[in-house]
């Protein structure tokens, strides 16, 4: 023992772990970092381009070579929410501009020789998207949680077959059945209604939501509810007070995925909706410019359209990380 107390040495201040020194680990790390950076750039480039385009003035948008540095403008957003007409003559435009009762946005538009006639269709389409995607997400998750709970906890005759049947609704690309569904909806008067699309999206999402949530609920030990049952609660009360709080992660993940699907759905929305119920996705590509294709307006529309998904995902990100890795972590 005495031999160990030799001359005092300076404490080690550098790591001697083999995985942190030497050329190989360093190179590996550099390569990893490089790949991550490249991927990030690749993924973000279109988004950045879209943001830039939406902030450009009409002349900068079509400039060749593309302008990286430009004077930002919010014209595109004004264009997006308004319906405008071009003044037939330069003189009329100048006269209109000379008026001093113009609002700031009217002035902006007047600079382009245009006049605002009314509020555009986009806000309404965005609202339709919200109503349809929001309601169908709520239904998908609500029914999903209830049936996933039932599948997870009760002995249901033909459980496996039922679950397979539910999943089978996703074995075909939905677009393949657009025509029959269109005809059916026509016949039932469901086309061009909120309810029609909500029903459709809920149906599509439900299989996904049942399967995903069943996985989460299976992971919650049933002893918790049984404890609540003997503690004097009914099945439903136990479900609400004990199961739901623990399924939050799964519910959050499912909500995000269902919302993204319903929010982004294009084909059925294009076919089954027109003016009154048209959602945003089919409207964006068909934005009519005044006298030209307004790329900046389309970019602005895409940007605005993107925001709700970003916000929902961001708000639920804490749960999502656990959600997408579920099953990988063992609960204590």
């Amino acid at each position, binding site marked *: 023992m005495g031999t160990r107390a030799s001359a005092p040495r300076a404490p080690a201040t550098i790591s001697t772990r083999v995985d942190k020194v030497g050329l190989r680990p360093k190179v590996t790390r550099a390569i990893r970092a490089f790949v991550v950076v490249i991927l990030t750039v690749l993924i973000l480039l279109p988004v950045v381009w879209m943001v830039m385009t939406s902030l450009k003035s009409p002349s900068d948008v079509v400039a060749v070579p593309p302008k990286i540095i430009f004077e930002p403008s919010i014209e595109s957003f004004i264009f997006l929410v308004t319906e405008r007409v071009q003044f037939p003559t330069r003189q009329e435009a100048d006269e209109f501009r000379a008026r001093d009762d113009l609002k700031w946005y009217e002035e902006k538009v007047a600079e382009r020789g245009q006049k605002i006639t009314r509020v555009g269709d986009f806000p309404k389409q965005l609202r339709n998207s919200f109503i349809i995607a929001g309601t169908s997400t709520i239904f998908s998750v609500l029914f999903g949680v209830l049936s996933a709970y039932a599948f997870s906890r009760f002995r249901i005759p033909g459980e496996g077959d039922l679950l397979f049947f539910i999943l089978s609704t996703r074995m075909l690309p939905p677009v393949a059945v657009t025509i029959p569904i269109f005809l059916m909806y026509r016949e039932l008067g469901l086309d061009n209604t909120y309810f029609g699309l909500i029903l459709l999206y809920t149906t599509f999402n439900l299989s996904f939501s049942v399967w995903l949530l069943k996985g989460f609920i299976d992971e919650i030990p049933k002893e918790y509810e*049984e*404890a609540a*049952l*003997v503690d004097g*609660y009914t099945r439903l009360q136990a479900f609400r007070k004990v199961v739901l709080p623990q399924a939050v992660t799964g519910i959050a993940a499912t909500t995000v995925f269902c919302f993204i699907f319903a929010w982004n759905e294009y084909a059925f929305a294009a076919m089954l909706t027109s003016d009154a119920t048209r959602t945003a996705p089919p409207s964006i590509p068909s934005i009519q410019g005044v006298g030209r294709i307004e790329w900046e307006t389309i970019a602005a529309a895409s940007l605005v359209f993107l925001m709700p998904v970003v916000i929902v995902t961001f708000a639920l990100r804490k749960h999502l990380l656990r959600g997408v890795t579920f099953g990988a972590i063992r609960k*204590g």
Partner: protein
Amino acid sequence: MSSITLQNITKRFGEKTALNDLSLTIQDQEFFVLLGPTGAGKTTTLRVIAGLEKQDTGDVLFDGTSMTGAVPAERDVAFVFQQYSLYPNMSVFDNLAFPLRSPLRKLPKGEIERRVKTAAETLRITHLLARKTAKLSGGEMQRVSIGRAIVREPRVYLMDEPLSNLDAKLREALRIELVHLQKTQGSTTVFVTHDQIEALTMAQRIAVLDEGHILQIGTPHEIYDAPATTFVATLVGTPRINLMQASRQDGRIFVKDSSVRLPPPTGIDLPADFLLGVRPEDVRPTNSGEFSGKVALTEPLGVETIVHIRSGENILTSLVPGITPISVGEEVRFDIVRERLHYFHPTGKRIVAASV
């Protein structure tokens, strides 16, 4: 508190019969232990009593009233689970208060607080009340679990191996606490375990289960001293009972492949071939012993030592107090306590004295 009667309970899970025509009565204020190996049907019995599982046939009676059809909440039982029973999203206080906040009870806030405090004090977990359950140790968790049962005055406590996930020291401490609690509260308790020591130390009466059947019901004393089958005999007692093939010849008992010969017992009609059971503590090495053997192994445990004695082809385990000077390889002489022998049919059933 209530008495519980199970009448001819049968429960099947698919092809498997978990409980087969099971009947038993648990007295009011009794500490009743269900003992058996894994898969014997102990937990199923408990769950049938609680109403978490519905029996296929038979009836569950509380104080003589049928509970069939009553949901768990209506039966007013408290269940302590083996694990996973604390609500992870709640604090210890909320866990304890949870049964009191049930819409069935509607207790005033002050009363809830008072009862939670009393229970916490009893179990010495007052300092944990504000804590989240995820931050508790195993022993603390199980204390809270028990606390959640004792905050209310249920008709019966049902405990499903509450101590089996704990380490030995903690298990011992909680065992004593539970018995003390049951005595002071005078509660009816049904306690499930596969640990024979738990059963022997805690129970007023034990029911030994195997494959959905009750093999024997009795006091720990009866179970240990008069096991109804070889299964019960080997399940209870460590080290295990010595079971040897024996036969009756010329009015004497011959133990197979061994030099042990014994006079037949009086009042018991023995068949030609049977099984002889000798508890290890009844195999006593002494210098003047009648039988001889060679020591194959010794296991000193401190308080006592297990000595394995080879006699012929048989190895008899003997339990001697303290640390013994007997060493491996030594020739020893030993006696067998005649009055405490167990006789079993080759089928495993105990041969009892013919009641004259």
